[in-house]
Structures are given as C-alpha cells and as structure tokens.
C-alpha cells in the first residue's frame, strides 16, 4: 500500500470520521473553542517552555551590587517577580508547564488504558466477569485518593514517575464505570446482534463495532482524566510528598504558602494557581461541553 493509499484509508476509517465529527461539534461552541485555545497554549508552553525560560529555574538572581533579589515584584527583567530564594518566578512557571503536561498526559493515558479495558470487558462480556470487575471498581471507589497516595508514596519513594503511576492506577475508576454503562447500551443494538449472528468473534465486534461508538466519549473522558490527574498531582505537591526536585506548579503554591507570603507576594503563588485552574477548567469543559457525555457520573 502506498503512502497516499494509507492516508486515504485512515481518512475514511471509522475513527477518523468520528474524530472529525466530535471535533466539529466541539469547535462550534464558543466555550469549547476557548478551552481548545487554552490547551493549545499550555501544550506549546509544555514543549518550548523550558527553552524560552529567561533564566535557569533554580538560579538565584542578584542585583548588580551582588545583593540577593528576594520577593522582587514584577518588573521588566522579571515579569513575574522573584520568590523567597531569589529565583525567577516566570522561569519556574515555564518549567512547570512541562512537568504538568507530562503528568497529565501519562497519568491520563494510563487511566484511559485501564479504564477502557475494564469497562469494555465488563460491559461486553457480562456475567461473572462483569460482577467481579465492577466489584473491583467499587473497591477502587472506596479508596480515598489523597491519603492512599500519601501512603503509597512513603512506601515507594517520592519519584516523579512513581506519582504518575499512582495517579493512573487509582483514578481510572470513573472511566471504567461510564464506559461499561455505555457498552451495555450499545450491546443491545441490532447490528451487534447481526454481527454476532453472522459469526463475528468477540475481539472483532469490540474493535469494529463497539470501540468506534465509544471513541468520542472515551476521548472526552481522557480530557477529564488529564484534568483530574493534574489537579491531584498539584494536591500531592502541595502536601509535600512529591519529588521536591521536580519543579511543579503545586510546589510553587506550597512554597509560597509555607513562607506565608501568599497575600503580599501574590506574583509568586497566583500565576501557578491560575495556570492549574485554567488548564483543568479547559479540560473539564471539553469533557462536559459535549452534551450527553455521560454527565451523570461523578469524577471523584
């Protein structure tokens, strides 16, 4: 198959058609267009942020006379001022964009993989498998995330990727629940029965008939998963149990709060807080902006 043929085959595949339709739906609303814009900015910052950061993020800034520049308010040289150690806040914010992005995408991807597998299997296979898997989901829902994560982190150490793994391996529960209920509905449709009657295998039906039908919903729940992961990671950073050497937005807020300088050195804690809020809000709006998108489920 030539490249052109491959491209054409992809363009006409179920997934591409559904992806285009979903995207068009999302872009038709002003709110979701705004959300897309914000995410695009965060994505670009995550890629180029560390390169365009004006200073090394942990370099202590000094004045010409060699004095440490602590709590410097925003100026031309330091657009977001400096923190308690005299480090440039803007540079730290830009570095933090990448760690946030990596956390969100990896943990979100992990959540999606586990949640989709569990949800689809439970929904389609049914019977004892379903009961067992859904009890597992209930069990996962019984885990209060932040306390559990703190225990696991003291157990496995506060590595950057350890935190991501913990986020991904616990928070998939809401995805599994929604996907299962969706698959249960799709399973009843006549064309699935027709496919089964004509001898299609279970993997084939899942891949060809069920997956394309839940693809857009899965995509939206991926967005919400990424948002949730970013939020929870910020919370863990704030408690101070994540890797202290990886600069994240949550740690910036923690440091400002610990120093008791939230109100007067506002340029230190507010930019990371606003960035987290904007990013997560955009992801949630994408996930919800599309009506009928499993909105009765709670994201815990």
């Amino acid at each position, binding site marked *: 198959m030539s490249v052109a043929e491959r491209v054409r085959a992809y363009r006409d595949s179920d997934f591409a058609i559904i992806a285009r339709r979903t995207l068009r739906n999302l872009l038709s609303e002003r709110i979701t267009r705004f959300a897309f814009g914000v995410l695009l900015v965060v994505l670009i910052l995550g890629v180029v942020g560390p390169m365009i950061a004006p200073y090394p993020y942990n370099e202590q800034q000094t004045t010409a006379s060699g004095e440490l520049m602590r709590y410097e308010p925003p100026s031309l040289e330091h657009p977001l001022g400096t923190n308690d150690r005299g480090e440039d806040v803007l540079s730290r914010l830009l570095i933090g964009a990448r760690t946030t992005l990596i956390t969100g995408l990896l943990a979100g991807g992990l959540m999606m993989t586990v949640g989709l597998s569990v949800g689809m299997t439970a929904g389609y296979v049914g019977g004892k498998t*379903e*009961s067992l898997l859904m009890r597992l989901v209930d069990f996962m829902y019984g885990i209060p*995330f932040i306390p559990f994560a703190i*225990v696991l982190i*003291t157990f496995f150490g506060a590595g950057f990727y350890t935190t991501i793994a913990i986020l991904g391996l616990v928070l998939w529960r809401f995805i599994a629940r929604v996907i299962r209920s969706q698959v249960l509905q799709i399973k009843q449709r006549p064309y699935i029965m027709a496919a089964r009657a004509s001898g299609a295998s279970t993997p084939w039906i899942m891949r060809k008939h069920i997956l394309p039908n839940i693809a857009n919903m899965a995509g939206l729940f991926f967005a919400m998963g990424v*948002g949730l992961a970013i939020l929870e990671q910020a919370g863990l950073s*704030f408690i101070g149990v994540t890797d202290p050497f990886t600069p994240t937005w949550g740690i910036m807020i923690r440091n400002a709060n610990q120093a008791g300088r939230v*109100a007067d050195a506002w340029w230190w804690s507010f930019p990371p*807080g606003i960035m987290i809020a904007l990013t997560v809000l955009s992801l949630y709006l994408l996930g919800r902006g599309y009506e009928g998108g499993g909105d009765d489920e*709670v994201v815990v």
Partner: protein
Amino acid sequence: MSRLRYFARRTAVTAVLIFLVASALFLFFRLMPGDYTSLLIQQGMDPQQIEALRRKWGLAAPLHVQYVRYIVNLLTADVGQSFRYGEPVWDLVAPRILNSFVLVAPAITATYIIGGLFGAIMGRRRGGYLEKSGIITVSAFHSIPDFFLGIILIAVFSSTLGIFPTSGMLSTPTSIMIQDQPYWRRFLLPEFWKHYALPFATVMLYFMQYPALIMRNSVVEVSDQEFLHYHRLKGLPESTLLRKIIRHASLPVVTLYPISLAASISGLVLIEIVFNWPGIGSLLVSSVLARDFPVIQFVFLVAAVWVILGNFLVDLLYGVLDPRVSVSGSDGE
C-alpha cells in the same frame, strides 16, 4: 428475585466487602517496609528496648497470628493503641472524626441544597445567559485546586481584610479555657463559627459543581415530559411548576448526596491542612509520616466503610424512591 431477597443479598455483599477491605488494609500496611520501630532505630533507641516494644505491640508474632488477632479485635470493637501517643486509637480518632464531620456534613448538605436549586434554575433557563455563565462558574470553582481556593480565601479575608482568623478551630487560650467542659460545647462558641466560615466556604465552592450540573441535566430531561405541558396548560405559575419539576428531577441528586459526602474525605485532607483544622485528614497525614499504623489503618477503615455504606444506602434508596427501578437485574441495575 423478590425485593426482600435483593436487600438481603445487598447487605451480605456489603458485609463481605467491609471484611475484604479490613483484610486488605491489614495486609497492605504489614507489607510496607519498616514498621514504627524502624523510626525509633533511626532516632538511636536501644535495640533491646525496641525488641521489647515490638513484643508489647504484637509486631513480633507471625503475620497470620497478627491477622487473626486483628480481626478478633475489630469484631470486639478494639482498634488498638497509637504507637506514637500510646493512647487508644479510638480516643485519638473519635474527636477528629467529629471535627471533620462537623465541617463536612453541613457544608456538603448546604452545597446540595443551594447547588441543587441553582442547577434547577439553570435547567429552566436552558440556552440562556444564566445557564451558560452558571455552568462555567461552578466548573471553574471545581477546577481551582481546593487548597488554592482556601489559600485565596485566607489571603483575602484573613491576611488582607482581617475578618476571619487564618487557621485552627479555636484560639489557644479558648481551647485551654474550655478543655474541662464537654467536647460539644466548643461548637457553640462564636469564636468557633469565625474559624468555621472559611473552610465551610471552601468546601461549598469546590463541591458545588456536582449538584448544580446534575440537577440541571435532570431538570432539562424532566422539562420535556408531558405532564409538564399539562400543568402549564392548567395555568400554574412558574414557581409552582419549578417545585413540581424539582420533585421529579431530584432523584439523581439525592442519590449522589451520600456518595459525595463519602468522597469528600479525600478532598478534605487538603482543606484541613490549609486551614489547620484538627480533623481526620490532618491526623492521617501526620500519622503516615510517623508510621503510626494502628491510627492510619483505622482511619482508612473508617473512610472505606463510610464509602461502602454510602453506596449501599444509595442502592436501597433507589429501590425505595423510584419504584420503577427493577430489582431483578444481577446487581440492581
């Protein structure tokens, strides 16, 4: 399957689930490398003393003996002693649970009432400005990390305006003054309410999203039903109409309420840390750092049982509130 058998089955499943969680918690914490004594070794304690302590706390026995002992103790409502303080875990945890409950239960309840009403109004103004801005507002408050929300409130109302105290539940002189009085007396002091305002507001703003959005969706769905056209033809005013809609639309919100109450335990940890609230969340964090297993284990058990019972109640409520819900499905679908 008859309704009675369905309830019986659900009860049995719940009991088994609680037992499994208790066992899982035991295994999980015993498999963690290092127990409380390893911290004492770091602090330079004499090995012989530590051995004596391990024997005293029952840490020296084989795992299965410890497990049987643990289950028997749980059944007889004995949850052990804190390694750190040497006090019974229950005496340590009980006031903390009360403090957390006093914070979270009224806050979540108020959130569900106000958020539900707001959601209903949003649902009635479908496509209008109020609905669009309302959805964004409640989503925005749920996107700001809850700890940051608390920090902002402290920065504005405590540090800058000086209206509310920054942290804690009572000022130190007051808590010393009332320590001989019954515990509940503190909740009646005006000073307590001043400390209460900001954490309460934080919980409310953060959790407003669920009831508001779910009520909105539910109201939108109900609004399309025919009985409403009939009521409108009768000439009922909008306020009466809204009341009728809310009665029909509130089922999903009502069933979510216990779940939300249970799930808020996780978010509560951060809010308690920010406001230095002497609740179960901040106790848990400090206990984890000190490896005080009996306390951690019990707090986790309380949290898990709380969630499981919440789900159980929801299942039962569904059957009672909405007779259309079939109980013939394998799991009460």
